[in-house]
């Protein structure tokens, strides 16, 4: 009991302790704010990738696609763990806006908007057809015209406008040119007419929140894309299948089941003419499929964690120095306590409790300040932008809305435990030194 009383009194009476508390609070504040924002950005980024890909992707990176996809779609749709499947065409094309002399290389993605919205979050990324995705590629003024959906970054580059007026949607024609390929990868049309070109009219814009996707992809109706790419022959081909599992299932387990089904499907199709096109097909979870995009962000988060590990080490040294100073001033007290029978372990416990209190108070203040700051981080950024034109993240580059400020209790718990552990670690050496002090030396007249 005396340890708690003495530790509390030392805490309240020694002003130098306030510096230790302040140092811990500042470190906790910085770590809470940065880790919360960083974790929020990473989680948001992952969620956007998940939404873009669905739960599982069966596909090939080959531009010729793979055959017999319709049979596999039927097989997959019969599975009780599958919610929806959407076949897609992926290829590269030249895009030219009418009136422009410039051709841009774009990635085309042929989809059925209804099926794709069931299997992925595509419908939610649309600007005009969010509520009714069936009309995504329809041009209201002329039912015979084919529509296309542009990523919003692409639209921004084309029109210098982020959003176009819904009431007067302009008719913007784009000619899309593709090189159709055979199942073996050769040009499907020899001679001068080897390029398939068709005009599509702007019908909507998509904002996935993934800048590379929104800056490079143009969505086309599935059948049109299949024709353009030469995949619409007697044996139709597709590039990939996006699959969404039922909500109660685990994604990895679902992917494993799809892998088994795919292996069996391949064996069943082994004797077919275009069975070779199945060789390059892989079954991946959304994380594996988007690994190239997610990995750098996760690495960045790891680097940040390591950097803030160094902040923690700094805290250890600050506490060590402060406790070293405190204990060197308290050597007389240590002698007195030992003269009345206090053991070395109790001396260590006394200063450890003192350090624990510094850790609790420091992390408490740091958490509170961090939490309040995170609550107000968006209004603060808005105010800075309004008055000084300053933004933490340029929204034309980073596809984020508000700065993520959702505090994760797991992260908070880790930070608090780390801060307290840092305080205890910092106090350990001075405490051991205090415990080793001999009372006869500390109580000598010369020591006073």
């Amino acid at each position, binding site marked *: *009991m*005396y340890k*708690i*009383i*003495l530790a509390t*009194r*030392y805490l309240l*009476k020694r002003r130098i302790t306030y510096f230790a508390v302040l140092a811990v609070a500042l470190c906790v504040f910085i770590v809470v704010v940065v880790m919360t924002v960083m974790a929020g950005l990473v989680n948001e980024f992952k969620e956007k990738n998940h939404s873009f890909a669905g739960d599982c992707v069966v596909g090939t990176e080959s531009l010729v696609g793979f055959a017999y996809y319709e049979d596999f779609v039927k097989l997959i749709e019969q599975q009780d763990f599958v919610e929806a499947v959407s076949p897609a065409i992926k290829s590269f094309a030249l895009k030219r806006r009418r009136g422009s002399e410039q051709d841009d290389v774009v990635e085309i993605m042929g989809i059925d908007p209804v099926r794709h919205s069931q299997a992925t979050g595509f419908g939610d990324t649309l600007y005009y057809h969010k509520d009714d995705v069936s009309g995504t590629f329809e041009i209201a003024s002329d039912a015979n015209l084919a529509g296309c959906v542009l990523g919003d970054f692409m639209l921004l580059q084309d029109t210098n406008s982020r959003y176009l007026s819904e009431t007067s949607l302009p008719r913007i024609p784009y000619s899309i040119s593709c090189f159709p390929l055979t199942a073996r990868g050769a040009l499907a049309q020899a001679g001068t007419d080897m390029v398939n070109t068709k005009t599509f009219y702007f019908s909507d814009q998509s904002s996935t929140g993934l800048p590379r996707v929104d800056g490079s992809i143009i969505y086309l109706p599935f059948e049109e894309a299949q024709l353009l790419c030469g995949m619409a022959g007697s044996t139709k081909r597709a590039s990939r299948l996006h699959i969404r599992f039922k909500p109660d299932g685990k994604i990895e387990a679902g992917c494993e089941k799809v892998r088994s089904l795919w292996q069996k499907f391949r064996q069943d199709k082994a004797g077919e003419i275009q069975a070779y096109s199945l060789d390059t097909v892989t079954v991946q979870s959304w994380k594996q499929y988007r690994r190239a995009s997610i990995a750098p962000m996760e690495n960045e988060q790891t680097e940040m964690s390591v950097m803030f590990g160094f902040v923690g080490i700094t805290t250890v040294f600050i506490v060590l120095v402060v406790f070293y100073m405190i204990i060197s001033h308290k050597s*007389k*007290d240590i*002698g*007195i*306590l*030992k*003269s*009345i*029978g*206090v*053991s*070395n372990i*109790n001396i260590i416990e006394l200063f450890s409790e003192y350090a624990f209190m510094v850790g609790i108070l420091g992390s408490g203040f740091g958490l509170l300040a961090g939490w309040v700051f995170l609550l107000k981080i968006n209004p603060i950024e808005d105010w800075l932008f309004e008055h000084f034109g300053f933004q933490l993240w340029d929204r034309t580059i980073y596809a984020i809305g508000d700065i993520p400020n959702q505090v994760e209790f797991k992260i908070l718990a880790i930070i608090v435990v780390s801060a307290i552990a840092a305080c205890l670690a910092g106090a350990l050496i001075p405490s051991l030194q205090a415990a080793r002090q*001999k*009372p*006869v030396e500390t*109580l000598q*007249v010369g020591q*006073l």
Partner: protein
Amino acid sequence: MSKDDFILKAEGLHKSYRMGATDVRVLKGVNLNIKKGEFVAIIGASGSGKSTLLHILGALDKPTSGVVTFEKRDLSRFRAGELNRFRNRMVGFVFQFYHLLDELSVLENVFLPAMTDKSIISWFACRRQAKNRAKELLAQMGLAERIKHKPYQLSGGERQRVAIGRALMNEPRLLLADEPTGNLDSATGNGILDVLEKLNRAGQTIVMVTHDERIAQRAGRTVTLADGKIEHKNSNNL
């Protein structure tokens, strides 16, 4: 006198310190017996080793060689925990510079020894009793009105009386006082000696170290320490 009457015996105590390349021999074979209920003054010049002897008798320090027995038990055979209990229960120290904890009140300083060997739960079970004992001691010392004060708000004499109260808190068999009046004026010092005499009359065994012969005369027996050895023993007539 029966051999059993001795509460404390020191036999052939030697103590030396290493100072640079040389050994400084402070005690050179001290023999000393203290009977129960005695008031012994150890007198000697500054640097004669009297405080060192007192610290060894109270197990705050260890002799280089020699034996100290307390109630027939050899202190050198005590384990660390037993030594802590010995310092907590069997002896009470009074120092020249009082050595009170500034962060604690007068009352807390006095009942501190009663807290040190107790867990939170056992302390809550006996805290009322301990506080009452501390208040009683402070009342005996004439400090009933000062229990909530901090040590720095007291005079030197008052602080020393608080230190005596703390030393007596656990009703120790032996009270060891190291120059208890050394930092006080003569009138205040006499007051402290009155307290010690009163305690001795009530049966408390006291060993006091002083360099002042007049103060030593207040004890029942005087032992002179010179050049690390007991030189002269004298029974004072009180």
